[in-house]
């Protein structure tokens, strides 16, 4: 026969307490899911605030993450410690760009030769020139929007391409303006599926080039494939396409610390070469990934600030709605609470039940938010950068559950404090 003694405060009793809590919590979890399922529409409306907050949070995080990836892959991946000398400065305002359009002069091969001779202490220097998108042909197959770039052999050390098959453009190719090309994986997929592309001859912009190498796959960004390219020696580019091309010069420093001195040296050399008086601004642009990165970081900072505000407002509104629904639910279910108390539910059992119910409800809102965000992110990815970060999913779910937990405390404690007999008297 049990005597009316509460369990002694031994380690075993505490473990039992924990187990008790776990059993009630699990029970509460199913009650919560059942309630959600029974009142689908009401639940959804209740959760709208949390859904919107979670969706907003994750979409913003995804877009920023997507941009980060893009920048990491492309701009940051100019190569480590690399900056680019080009006609214009990147990522400046439109007005400044229109002005620079008139003042700045193109960078030429001579500038490249000049810098190569006179610049000191760099690791690598290379030049590229881009031709507007063209089509490539092999036998009957045509591939459109192929980017055609003339490059110096040194670009293999500076750019993001890696050799998968064959070789990159070499000094001899460059010296003799050989009609050879180094191609991206998209061309392999289209022209040579399952076949060896090396030695094959493809037609680009009406000229025939022999494939000497294939690049490792890079992937897509902003929904645009980064493997849809043909690179040829810059000399061949001049010979058959543009005799006097405007080029970009990439300079790689040995270490990050040498970036700024090297940039200054290039600036000085170029200003001297262009006879710019010291009052005049540069007529060229020096673009380091750091510039772009810092600009981007400032931008993400303000985007995040706004997002945090929006998310907080929606979460609080959502939390208050949930709190009200939970208060109504406590009133509605007073009789049930009385029954549970009459069967031995303690205050903390009832508290746990309602807090978990509230958290599960809000968590379900969070889950809907995550699903919506993933869908939206997939659409955004088609024409912009977006990648759902796992941390965003966890954050969204945790945040919404926490909101439910927090705003559930008040209704739950009201339920827990009900007197058993008074609660039983409320006919349900």
């Amino acid at each position, binding site marked *: *026969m*049990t*005597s*009316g*003694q*509460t369990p002694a405060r031994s380690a075993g009793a505490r473990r*039992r*307490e924990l*187990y*008790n809590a776990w*059993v*009630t919590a699990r*029970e509460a979890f199913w009650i919560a899911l*059942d309630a959600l399922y029974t009142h689908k529409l009401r639940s959804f409306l209740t959760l709208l605030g949390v859904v919107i907050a979670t969706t907003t949070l994750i979409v913003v995080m995804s877009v920023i993450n997507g941009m980060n990836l893009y920048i990491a892959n492309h701009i940051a991946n100019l190569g480590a410690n690399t900056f680019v000398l080009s006609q214009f400065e990147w990522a400046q305002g439109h007005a400044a760009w229109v002005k620079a359009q008139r003042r700045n002069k193109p960078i030429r091969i001579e500038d490249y030769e000049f810098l190569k001779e006179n610049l000191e202490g760099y690791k690598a220097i290379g030049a590229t020139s881009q031709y507007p998108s063209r089509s490539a042909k092999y036998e009957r197959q045509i591939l459109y929007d192929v980017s055609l770039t003339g490059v110096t052999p040194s670009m293999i050390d500076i750019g993001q391409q890696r050799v998968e098959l064959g070789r990159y453009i070499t000094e001899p190719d460059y010296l003799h303006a050989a009609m050879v090309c180094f191609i991206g994986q998209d061309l392999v997929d289209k022209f040579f599926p399952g076949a060896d592309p090396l030695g094959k001859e493809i037609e680009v912009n009406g000229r025939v080039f022999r494939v000497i190498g294939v690049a490792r796959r890079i992937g897509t960004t902003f929904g645009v494939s980064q493997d849809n390219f043909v690179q040829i020696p810059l000399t061949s580019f001049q010979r058959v396409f543009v005799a006097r091309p405007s080029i970009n010069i990439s300079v790689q420093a040995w270490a990050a610390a040498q970036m700024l001195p090297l940039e200054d040296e290039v600036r000085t050399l170029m200003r001297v070469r262009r006879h710019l008086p010291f009052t005049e601004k540069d007529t060229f642009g020096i673009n380091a990934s750091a510039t772009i990165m810092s600009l981007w970081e400032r931008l993400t900072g303000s985007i995040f600030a706004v997002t945090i505000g929006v998310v907080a407002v929606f979460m609080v509104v959502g939390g208050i709605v949930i709190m009200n629904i939970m208060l109504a639910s406590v009133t509605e279910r007073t*009789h*049930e609470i*009385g*029954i*549970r*108390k*009459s*069967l*031995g*539910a*303690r*205050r903390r*059992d009832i508290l746990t039940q309602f807090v978990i119910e509230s958290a599960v409800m809000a968590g379900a809102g969070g889950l809907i938010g995550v699903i919506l965000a993933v869908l939206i992110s997939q659409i955004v990815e088609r024409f912009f950068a977006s990648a759902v970060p796992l941390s965003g999913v966890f954050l969204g779910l945790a945040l919404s559950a926490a909101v439910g937990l927090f705003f559930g405390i008040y209704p739950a404690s009201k339920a827990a404090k009900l*007197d*058993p*007999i008074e609660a*039983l008297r409320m006919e*349900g």
Partner: protein
Amino acid sequence: MEPQTLDSQLRESSAPPDDIVIHAHDLWKIYDMGTVKVDALCGLSFSIRRGEYVAIMGPSGSGKSTLMNLIGCLDTPTHGQYWLNGRLVSQLTDDELAYIRNKEIGFVFQTFNLLARATALHNVELPLIYSGTPVEERLMRAEESLRLVELGDRIQHKPNELSGGQRQRVAIARALVNHPSILLADEPTGNLDSTTGEEIMNLFDRLHQSGNTIILVTHEHDIAAHAHRIIHIRDGRVDRDEPLE
């Protein structure tokens, strides 16, 4: 144990002897309605031994339900002492009261008080949930308890799919599932027709034979006749306390 010695012991505020499961001494329950005060119980005293089968009778409004709620630790007296299994209930904390309701007392209500949206099985499982019983054991014992009240084939039915008598049997299965030492029933047959009521009473008889202490409230003599002792209550006081043969 003589009643006199018991009373003198209690005056010294010590616990009653071991085989007394319930001892009420000068219990008062006063409902304060603001303008008026209703004395539902006015200094009620009695004891019940382990294994007794007691009926509490009295006219409507005499305080039977109020008393049962006190005995079941659902409510607390305004004054007086109530000893349950040797412990003074007024000194217990909220959690200790919950523990008693869970483990030591099985309460059967006139209106069944089942969770409408839950199956019979889940209703019976509830006390086991609050005692932290592991799932497998919980299901096993809940089923066993339902079989005991001959509802083994109705475990997945919800209350609205069951007859009144079956609902009350579910409630009894629930009251028994944690093997309490005391079974309390407040007019358990009040909402049932006489045949079904008789079935329920047969069940109580069986439970008593297997060693349970049973206290039931009724105003029907036929029902009270099942018990071995009747406590008559009038205006919140014990009117008569008589054994039955």
